[in-house]
């Protein structure tokens, strides 16, 4: 067999990366359910559509140009490019990725799923009032202009944050901080839903919590691919010790955060809710993402407990300041991602020892630089793109469409027809 690559493909590693890529793709419908169950009946389809459209648009964008910008030859550590990577024309299927023993196409697919889910996460802040056309154009631009460079900084071998030594195992910075901050910026640009304008306590209740719980379950499941698949960056063959560690910390943090969210909610509001436990799961998963392959399972329990409490608090803060981040993309993904990225510098033990293990704050400092860079870059980028798209078509549907619901007004569909016959 003729081979264009220097190393032989390892079937075990490739199997794991194929599975991981599929798992991360599944997170997108999982997110659609998680978000879709929480909105009002009249907006369930449009909310799910945000995730599905991301699969379509970024699915094409990543193959066409996204991968090229994120992982092409580096231009000063800032952005990548390689003519041969445009539309993957130059990627022979026999070629492996660097010295990794997996086909480059598999690596491209794995990374592409991250690029898909990140804008889909943002959409949670914008549900129930965002214009579909604007969303579509926004995410295509955002994935190209904001996400791809950021991924390059953090994950490409020549990216400036990577070279600095910032740790982001599976995307706490690139995915969650970027998505959370962008969500906040766009929520501010969009303004609150009509029922929340000036009214204290509008009655906006979730249409279908069982779907939200199902979505949380699929997210947890898929996240094992997200995190343990990210071991591809640090071990060969993949599906080894680091993958195992990332799997274990993912499980530990999700369980601990579910528990701590439940308990803090019980203490604060008097009842433990099912939406609470689902939210806790996601908060824990987010927080452990940057740390997954770097900390011990016991540390992950601690990180999980903290993330449940802190993200719960962030949601309450949102209620107070009155930003209408519909489904708490910022409070969960932004804040959870920040927490995880920072605490990675404290709790990490492999391959470098963090503050706790070594007393040395160097790694913590690096993490702060990474966090800051991601916040500023995604915040400014999103603001600029958001303003641009708003100018072109308006970010928001008309008041009448919002009132009637986006499902019927944008899609000409209703989520359910459950009346008799």
């Amino acid at each position, binding site marked *: 067999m003729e081979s264009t690559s220097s190393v032989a493909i390892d079937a075990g590693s490739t199997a794991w990366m194929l599975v991981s890529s599929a798992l991360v793709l599944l997170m997108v419908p999982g997110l659609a359910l998680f978000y879709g169950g929480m909105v009002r009946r009249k907006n369930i389809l449009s909310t799910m559509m945000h995730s599905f459209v991301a699969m379509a648009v970024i699915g094409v964008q990543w193959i066409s140009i996204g991968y090229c910008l994120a992982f092409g030859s580096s231009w000063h550590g800032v952005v990548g490019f390689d003519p041969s990577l445009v539309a993957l024309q130059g990627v022979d299927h026999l070629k492996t990725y660097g010295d990794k023993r997996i086909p480059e196409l598999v690596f491209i697919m794995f990374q592409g799923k991250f690029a898909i889910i990140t804008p889909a996460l943002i959409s949670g802040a914008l549900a129930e009032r965002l214009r579909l056309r604007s969303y579509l154009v926004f995410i295509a631009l955002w994935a190209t202009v904001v996400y791809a460079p950021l991924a390059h900084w953090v994950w490409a071998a020549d990216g400036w944050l990577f070279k600095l030594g910032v740790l982001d195992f599976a995307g706490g910075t690139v995915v969650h901080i970027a998505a959370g901050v962008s969500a906040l910026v766009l929520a501010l640009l969009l303004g609150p839903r009509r029922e929340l304008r000036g009214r204290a*306590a509008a*009655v906006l209740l979730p249409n279908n919590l069982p779907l939200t719980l199902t979505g949380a379950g699929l997210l947890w499941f898929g996240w094992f691919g997200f995190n343990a698949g990210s071991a591809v960056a640090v071990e060969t063959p993949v599906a080894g010790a680091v993958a195992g560690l990332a799997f274990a910390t993912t499980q530990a943090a999700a369980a601990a955060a579910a528990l701590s969210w439940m308990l803090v*909610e019980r203490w604060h*509001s008097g*009842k433990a809710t099912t939406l*609470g436990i689902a*939210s806790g799961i996601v908060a824990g998963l987010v927080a452990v993402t940057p740390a997954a392959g770097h900390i011990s399972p016991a540390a992950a329990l601690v990180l999980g407990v903290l993330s449940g409490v802190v993200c*719960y608090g962030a949601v309450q803060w949102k*209620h107070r300041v009155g930003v209408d981040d519909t489904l708490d993309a910022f409070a969960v993904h932004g804040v959870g991602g920040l927490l995880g990225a920072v605490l990675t510098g404290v709790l990490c033990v492999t391959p470098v020892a963090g503050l706790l293990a070594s007393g040395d704050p160097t790694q913590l400092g690096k993490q702060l630089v990474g966090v800051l860079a991601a916040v500023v870059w995604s915040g400014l980028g999103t603001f600029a793109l958001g303003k641009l798209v708003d100018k072109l078509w308006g970010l928001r549907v008309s008041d009448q469409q919002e009132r009637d619901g986006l499902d019927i007004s944008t899609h000409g569909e209703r989520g359910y027809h459950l009346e008799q016959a």
Partner: protein
Amino acid sequence: MKLIVAIVRPERLDAVQEELQRVLDEEDRYRLTVDSVEGHGAQAGEVELFRGRAIRPRLVPRTRITIAVNDSYVDRTIDAIVRGARTEGAAGAVGDGKIFVQPLEEVVRIRTGERGERAI
């Protein structure tokens, strides 16, 4: 002929049906129509939580029972509903509901075309 409309707690429907069965007919052939409504009254809806935020719905789920009866049955029907709908073991509680009585001018049984008291 009268149309009796009762708004009761959903969980009392079974009890009301049992009382009605006793009064209106021995053989489970009493007739009624039921639908789900939401009511606003003295009783407030139960608080629901959404990520730590308490939401008190303006409306409470209720069940509406509609029964067309001949005049001589009006009182015992009302009494049966009251018996079935009052909260268990209690002298009644806020939210137990209301009964409305309206005039009914004509009834038609679709199957046979019969009209009036015989059709009810």
